[in-house]
């Protein structure tokens, strides 16, 4: 799937950057939370397991967006990105309003502060990109002369 950039696919043009940033965040979050769960789960089980869950969702979103957002993968991408947006808002708000709820920082604490607020910005960029490349639209991203090839 290295060809046919343009409408209906999430993996090309700007999407390449989105997948790259998602991949880096997913890898960083998985590495960090897996390390925390493996070495010091008893210190803050809720925070570390929540981080691991968030990391898993980032991984799913990365794969779904990299698959080009065709058919079922587009639905998976929508769900994963929506869960991230909800998670960072809900957990971010909770961590500020009820500071004692989590014993340690999670990926989403303080709206993703520990990850340079990337977790706050990324899902909304992802939502915009999924909407921008939705099937049936001529999303002029890299090559305006390409026709729609998604379902």
């Amino acid at each position, binding site marked *: 799937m290295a060809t046919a950039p343009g409408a209906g696919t999430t993996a090309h043009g*700007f999407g390449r950057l989105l997948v790259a940033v998602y991949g880096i965040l997913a890898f960083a979050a998985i590495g960090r939370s897996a390390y925390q769960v493996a070495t010091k789960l008893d210190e803050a089980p809720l925070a570390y397991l929540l981080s691991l869950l968030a990391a898993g969702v980032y991984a799913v979103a990365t794969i779904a967006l990299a698959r080009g957002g065709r058919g079922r993968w587009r639905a998976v991408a929508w769900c994963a990105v929506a869960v991230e947006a909800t998670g960072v808002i809900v957990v971010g708000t909770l961590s500020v309003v009820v500071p004692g709820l989590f014993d340690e920082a999670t990926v989403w604490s303080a709206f993703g502060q520990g990850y340079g607020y990337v977790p706050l910005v990324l899902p909304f960029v992802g939502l915009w990109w999924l909407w921008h490349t939705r099937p049936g639209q001529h999303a002029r991203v890299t090559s305006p002369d390409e026709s729609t090839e998604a379902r």
Partner: protein
Amino acid sequence: MVLPLFVLAVALCAALAGWAAWFAARDRAVILRQLFAAGAVEAVLVVQAVVAGVLQAGGHEVDGPLFWGYLLTAALLLPIAAAWAFAERTRWSSVVLCVASLTVAFLQWRLWIVWGGS
């Protein structure tokens, strides 16, 4: 004696990121010469791994999984960006190379802290 290796890697990454950003601004895709520069960064990372391994064997206390995890991640980023540079012949390959370079530079800073900065 390890500090110059980190400084060198960060300097190379910053230069590569700037080069890629300039290409992205000029609407150009990544060129082979930039991939050679990425190869130079990788070479520094390999030297870091060797030096770190020798010093660790010599008794330097470091959080092993954390340090090697960061170093391995740093080493993987530029090859992936390079592979995409072949698949994506638009300015976005330059943007991805820029982001990857900046991430490696950030990881170098983290590595320096994890190493204990001596």
